[in-house]
């Protein structure tokens, strides 16, 4: 079964000559790990951010649960976003707030406006937030200021925040690009485990081929706003890689050894 159907998706940023996304058609499988590959500027971020409408694409359809989210009104979009967690390269936590408060932010779509303004979360919200913190092994940091944590810990808080939404899908926009190699593995392991246990569809963009091969059940290659590869990892041959990244002498930098 497919979780997300994308049809004829195109987008052009204001003041740019070429389109950031060019007529993209893609089916993303449910409960699978889809890894997006592509050079910086190839449109991975724009694509991911179109799925939860952080960016408003100019045309096309994105169908989740038989609902075209690009045709939805504000309220419906908020409802759909509730079921889509998102993780960012720079973590994007409210640094002044505590770890717990940041995770509770993942519950904001479940509280009504007035109690929400005064951070009156329900005891169920707190239970879920604490549970998510346990899942990412940060329970003892619950009352620390988020800004005081290390990069790897911050990304785990961000994962807990996404998990607190009880999402069906998690979008991860270069989730490990600001972490060291060891933390890259640990963070991806954690993300994979959580998505498997909760049956969450994961769509993540990565820059390291070896890392991508470790986790991907499906790979999508992008170049200049177009999809140039869409298959299982085993089909990603050297020829396909050149289609994605172009010719380069520096394959070792992508983690592709022995080229």
């Amino acid at each position: 079964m497919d979780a997300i159907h994308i049809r004829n998706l195109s987008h052009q940023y204001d003041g740019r000559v070429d389109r950031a996304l060019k007529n993209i058609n893609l089916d993303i499988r449910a409960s699978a790990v889809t890894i997006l590959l592509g050079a910086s500027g190839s449109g991975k971020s724009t694509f991911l951010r179109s799925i939860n409408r952080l960016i408003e694409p100019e045309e096309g359809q994105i169908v989740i649960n038989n609902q075209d989210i690009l045709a939805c009104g504000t309220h419906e979009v908020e409802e759909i976003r509730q079921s889509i967690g998102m993780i960012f390269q720079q973590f994007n936590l409210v640094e002044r707030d505590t770890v717990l408060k940041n995770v509770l932010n993942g519950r904001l779509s479940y509280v009504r406006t007035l109690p929400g303004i005064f951070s009156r979360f329900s005891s169920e919200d707190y239970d879920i937030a604490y549970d998510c913190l346990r899942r990412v092994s940060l329970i003892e940091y619950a009352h620390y200021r988020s800004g005081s944590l290390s990069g790897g810990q911050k990304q785990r808080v961000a994962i807990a925040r996404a998990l607190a939404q009880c999402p069906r899908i998690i979008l991860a926009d270069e989730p490990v690009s600001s972490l060291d190699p060891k933390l890259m593995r640990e963070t991806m392991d954690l993300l994979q485990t959580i998505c498997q246990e909760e049956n969450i569809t994961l769509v993540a963009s990565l820059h390291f081929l070896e890392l991508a091969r470790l986790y991907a059940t499906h790979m999508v290659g992008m170049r200049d706003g177009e999809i140039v590869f869409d298959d299982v990892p085993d089909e990603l041959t050297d020829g396909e890689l050149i289609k994605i990244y172009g010719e380069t002498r520096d394959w070792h930098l992508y983690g592709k050894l022995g080229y």
Partner: protein
Amino acid sequence: MDVTKPLLHQSSSDSRLMRRLLTSLVVVTIYWWAVQGTNTSLTHILEGIPFMAGYIKRMFPPDLSIINRLLVGAAETIQIAIMGTTLGALVALPLSFLAARNVMSVRVVYQATRSLFDVCRAVNEIVWALLFVAMVGLGPFPGVLALAVHLVGALGRYFSEAIETANPEVIKAIVATGASRTLVVVHGILSEIKPLIVGYVLYYFEHSVRAATILGLVGAGGIGFELITSIRLFKSQEVLTTLIVMMLMVVAVDRISAHVRNRIVQVEAIE
């Protein structure tokens, strides 16, 4: 246009001399205009010295018998400042979101709110006080209103600028959770800039205490009323006492408020 170009590139001593002469002429003219309009003259100042010395001599010793009345006035001044600052901040905060480009995308609303802030701020507290005394009568309440209106402009502007410094990526992360617009503003923006807001409010509270000392001059309550009364009745000894109480009050409020502000900054740094 074509005439200025060669003038700028040609560094001939002639044109430079011309420009200097022209600049001097403009400066001299401005000062002549200002001096003849204000009767400022050295003879005036010299002639005035004995009178000033006489007035200062008559101020001593300060008349301490009125101290109770002054303390009541000083307390009222601080009360006016507290209420004026609070009222101003409460009105400024919600309005400031309408004047922040990253929250308000409708240009007309954004521009209109900014203009409102400019008008409130451009008019001095004492002028607002004159207007409110005329509208609601004498007493501390028009003073509170005068401070509040001025602060809506001043704080509103600083608040909206603080809102515009909020990290757009953090805001996007809160949007992505599915939170409603209001909750995004509260949890994505307000919680980031809270210390800035507290800092501005305390700073403007200090400013308000200083401003409130003179509101009494136009009948809008506080210790300024005592000052203007003593001056009008030529009670120089009372004037000195009033000035001393005023100074002590302003210094004390500044110290305490600065201490609280520092504490907030420090707590932020340690956490």
